[in-house]
């Protein structure tokens, strides 16, 4: 089991939510004070380095035009971290390649970071949440197709070493691709893909990449992992899916006592409670399949956002499996329950800072997890563990 400290480098100093319709896409940037932003960047980088000191790996991601994550060019932050950190693995999850116009440029950026960090890059790729299409002016229709063409092209950029090659695909066109530098890690850095759909997960499994899923709780995570394992097996990768191929991101706060854990957990909920986004941003045409839109029109909940659900409380979020919070024993029990239910995963992505969780409390949470929970997780779930043993057993019987 590997744990990752994930910070969205949020900017929390906002006017009351009722004064704006959306925290994403349209919130005027006059609200952002660049000097306060600079202090926040310093602080969040320090927290990543605290995580590294505690033996926890580093993870970041990319969003645009939003106060929830002021990291619109994640490779830049990763480049800084590549020089400031020394040993931690560096996970970017990820590059929104369905919204990037030049996959070859993304391959170059990632190769540079792998070299800068002496081979510590974990290269993640995401389709991108729906609110990203307007900032990128990216057509929400056929995003999956663009995503996979871009990813395959990036892998080829990293693994082709014999001079220029051409790519004339459906979405991307290049006549002479020959990137410098090439990555240190061979044949290429580990690849991660996030997905909230079962169809997507099966494709990730077929390719053997690491599948991550964010805040998908018990049922959805279980379905996604089952699809991943099915895709893996059907592609002939064997019966056994190692847990290091699967990752789960949750809001996690470990406190030394109930009171401190509770206070930290409440502040972490900012991730969910601050994510005020109207439907025209959270569900652009073509982002979800037509059949899903029919269900949404008839009252189903959009899995893309937990805003306004019962997960807006600590109890609700813990019950839903989107938050693990409490004392070390409580958190360990919560993780084990979730781990067993979904079939097992080898990467825990810790959304460990949000909103007004200050530096001291963030560091406390990182250290309490790293010292009081992480060692037991590593012992319980070594990387050689196989995911989905229960379905294997039931299939055999």
């Amino acid at each position: 089991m590997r744990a990752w400290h994930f910070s969205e480098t949020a900017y929390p100093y906002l006017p009351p939510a009722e004064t704006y319709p959306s925290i994403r896409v349209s919130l005027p940037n006059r609200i952002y004070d660049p000097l306060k932003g600079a202090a926040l960047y310093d602080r969040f980088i320090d927290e990543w380095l605290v995580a590294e000191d505690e033996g926890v790996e580093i993870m970041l991601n990319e969003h645009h035009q939003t106060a929830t994550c002021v990291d619109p060019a994640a490779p830049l932050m990763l480049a800084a971290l590549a020089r400031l950190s020394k040993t931690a693995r560096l996970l970017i999850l990820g590059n929104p390649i369905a919204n990037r116009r030049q996959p070859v440029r993304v391959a170059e950026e990632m190769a540079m970071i792998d070299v800068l960090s002496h081979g510590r890059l974990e290269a993640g790729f995401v389709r991108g949440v729906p609110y990203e299409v307007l900032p990128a002016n990216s057509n929400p229709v056929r995003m999956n197709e663009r995503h996979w063409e871009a990813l395959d092209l990036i892998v080829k950029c990293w693994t082709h070493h014999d001079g220029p090659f051409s790519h004339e695909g459906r979405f991307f066109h290049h006549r002479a691709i020959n990137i410098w530098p090439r990555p240190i890690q061979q044949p290429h850095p580990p690849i991660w893909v996030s997905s909230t759909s079962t169809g997507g997960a099966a494709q990730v499994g077929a390719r053997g990449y690491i599948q991550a899923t964010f805040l998908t709780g018990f049922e959805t995570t279980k379905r996604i992992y089952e699809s991943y394992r099915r895709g893996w097996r059907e592609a002939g990768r064997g019966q056994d899916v190692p847990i290091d191929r699967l990752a789960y991101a949750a809001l996690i706060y470990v406190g030394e006592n109930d009171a401190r854990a509770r206070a930290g957990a409440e502040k972490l909920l900012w991730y969910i409670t601050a994510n005020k986004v109207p439907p025209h941003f959270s569900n652009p045409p073509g982002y979800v399949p037509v059949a899903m839109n029919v269900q949404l029109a008839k009252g189903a909940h959009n899995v893309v956002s937990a805003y306004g659900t019962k997960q807006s409380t600590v109890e609700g979020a813990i019950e839903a499996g989107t938050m693990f919070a409490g004392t070390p024993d409580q958190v360990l029990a919560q993780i084990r329950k979730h781990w067993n239910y979904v079939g097992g995963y080898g990467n825990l992505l810790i959304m460990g800072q949000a909103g007004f969780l200050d530096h001291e409390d963030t560091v406390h949470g990182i250290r309490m997890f790293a010292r009081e929970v992480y060692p037991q997780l590593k012992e319980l779930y070594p990387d050689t563990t196989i995911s989905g043993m229960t379905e294997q057993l039931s299939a055999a019987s």
Partner: protein
Amino acid sequence: MQMVTRPDMAVVKLSGIDLELFDSGQDTQPQSPILFLHGGGGFHPQQPFVAPLSTRRRLVVPSHPGFGRSSLPDWLDSVDDIAYLYLELMDILQFDRIDLIGCSIGGWVAAEMATKAPERFRRLVMVGPVGIKVGPSDRLDIPDIFAMPQAEVDKLLYHDPERMKPDPAKMSDDELAAMFRARETVALLTWEPWMHNPKLKHRLHRIKAPTLFIRGDSDGLVSQTYLEAYASLLPDARTVTITAAGHVPQLERPAAFAAEVMQFFGE
């Protein structure tokens, strides 16, 4: 807006596409047929302009690829693609020279067709058409319907939104699916450049057919300024306004709409 169960429309195979086609079938008259190209909301044979337009003329209405029951192949992603498809449809239907009506995005398709084959169109009607960019670069000519609440979109679309807007609660699953699919196809076709082909305005002078530009006076998507700029790029065009109508005068004021069109067609 009342939705009615879709009666049988033929499906023809064209360039590998299953194209749903309404054909009023009255081809006994000497006049040329009318080809009607619907807007982003899609077409239904029960729509109120169908009867007045097809009483004395043969009226043919395809559902664009990605609308209704028409398929949407992977390779199709532009209005230009649809324009070529319909020129081929005219060949198959042996339509030598016709009257063409295009509404909104269908107007854009019509303009593309008429610039490609000017000789094949006798008269052209453009209803709240999109397809060109005439305003400054820092202001959208057509408001971004995908960046505002649906209630705001309805206000731009209709003179009387309360009467006209669709009510999802009263729609069947099939009707809901068609609505969401139409929306998705509009996004596919219009996302970038937004609602226009930068080349089109440099080709419009090729259109030979006398052209009538129609706009509902409450149209919040296509402004009067935009309409007049569009018309000024065609050699022989004039504009007319329909009162108490928004972006879809053919649905909101069908009688007034049909009267303008049929008068222009010389009926």
